């Protein structure tokens, strides 16, 4: 469904993403982990059209999407969320989601109905009338997901939607992601919280200094020597054992 072939992104002398190749098949739930500055968000920005790759190709459902603007990529069925949430602050939660729904629907009335449904799915119904900027961070992360879902993506890129949440908020969003996946959505999830990722993802790619240093099931990745050295540390391995 999504294929990266040797994707490279440089900022001046810094190579933020170096020759990353990966393959996402329909129905996958792929995790991308790595320490701060590993290039995870940069990779998302390249895939979603915010940055243009300096090398390599991004192919989504058979089409090379390199050089297409983000809105065109969204219309193809690939939607991303932002790590630093970007709600339409002065608008209500319902309107935020509705603007996402308007991408596929021509009428405001239809989009409003669709938004109601998505708001419900994401557990935001009690807050539908609230201004987005008034929401606490946990709900704003949910709003990111809801708004993206309203565009009816076939592939959803989630950028650290679990970061900074309380344990109960975390459980809620993990449950939401599981449900979306069970309903047939393909997802790529960037995450910092290793424990949550281990339970959630079927396959994990580890980025380090812009390079994909390991790929495999959570168990395989956690035992990988290079991953332990670069990111997890011995303590994590002992804790998991």
């Amino acid at each position, binding site marked *: 469904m999504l294929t990266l072939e040797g994707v490279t992104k440089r900022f001046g002398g810094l190579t933020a993403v170096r020759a990353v190749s990966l393959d996402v098949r329909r129905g996958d739930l792929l995790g991308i982990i790595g320490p701060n500055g590993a290039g995870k968000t940069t990779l998302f920005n390249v895939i979603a*059209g915010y940055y243009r790759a300096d090398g390599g190709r991004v192919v989504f459902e058979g089409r090379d999407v390199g050089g297409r*603007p983000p809105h065109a990529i969204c219309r193809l069925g690939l939607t991303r969320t932002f790590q630093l949430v970007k709600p339409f602050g002065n608008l209500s939660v319902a309107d935020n989601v509705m603007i996402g729904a308007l991408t596929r629907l021509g009428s405001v009335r239809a989009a409003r109905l669709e938004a109601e449904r998505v708001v419900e799915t994401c557990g935001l119904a009690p807050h539908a009338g609230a201004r987005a900027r008034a929401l606490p961070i946990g709900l704003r992360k949910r709003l990111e997901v809801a708004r993206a879902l309203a565009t009816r993506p076939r592939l959803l890129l989630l950028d650290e939607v679990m970061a900074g949440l309380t344990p109960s908020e975390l459980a809620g969003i993990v449950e939401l992601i599981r449900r979306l996946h069970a309903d047939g959505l393909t997802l790529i999830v960037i995450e910092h919280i290793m424990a949550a990722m281990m339970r959630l993802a079927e396959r994990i790619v580890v980025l380090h200094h812009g390079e994909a240093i390991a790929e495999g099931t959570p168990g395989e990745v956690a035992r990988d020597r290079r991953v332990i050295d670069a990111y997890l540390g011995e303590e994590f391995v002992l804790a998991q054992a």
Partner: protein
Amino acid sequence: MTSFPPRRWAALALLGVATLLPLVVRDAFVLDSLILILMWGALSAAWNVAGGYAGQVSLGHAAFFGIGAYSTALMTARFQQSPWLGLLLGVVLSIVAGGVIGYLSNRLRGPYFALSTIAFSQVLLILASRWRGFTAGSEGIPVPFRRGFWTLGLSHVAWVYVALGVALIYYGVEAWLESSRLGYQLAGVREDEDAAEALGIASRRLKIHAVTLSAAMTSVGGTLWAQYVGFVDPFYVFSIDLSIRFALNTIIGGMGTALGPFLGSILITSLETYLRATFSGLKTGFAGTYLVIYGTALILVVRFAPEGLTGLADRLGAWRARADA
């Protein structure tokens, strides 16, 4: 962003007053004030399409106003054609100019966009004031008065209804924007462009559409103003003062609301007209009075009603509802 019904009632009340006033009052001063309130209100509403709804805050909208004013002045005075042809020409030229400015707004955000719009209006000012052979330069152009609707030589009462018609159409455009797909998508672009793009909104194209529509609406206002006043002076029609007037009326009234620009215009224009009448004998000493008004009004709004008069009304309404409960 769904409109608050009391605002529609307020708009209806204002419409009623403006419709009935010319039937009972024949005083030229009152009618002139009413015409100016409606014209500046409509022009601020035109600015609001770009500045309020799409978040493209321009400080150079006098450019489009001037284009409209000069189009009709040149069309009627130099080529002896109908002012309606001038109106049409102004709209076409403003659409082209609006496209250019709209394109700039894709490259430049926030203050840099505002600065580039000022520069654009200044370029047109220099062009109009220096190209003496064609525009008569800084002397300006008297717009010939020929009685009749097709020549836009109208009585004060007729002008009230022309201005009211335009105001009503512009209000309608914005009321539609508030509940349409385009309006919601523009709101998304205004609130966060990157997020709007992620959600499939072609933000660049939409910004150009909004600025272009706003430019065309402003140009129509410029044409009508020139026909009403009867004289086009480059240093007035392309002035930054004028651009600021459009922006401030809207900011004071409430950006991104259909009623806001008109409320702002009622407040500012009537204050200005009143002060001008009161201090007319001391003209030289009070030439800048209106700037003092703008400054004071702006400070008061920013301090007490940062979302403008409509926002203030909403808050008072909510406060009263709480008090009742």
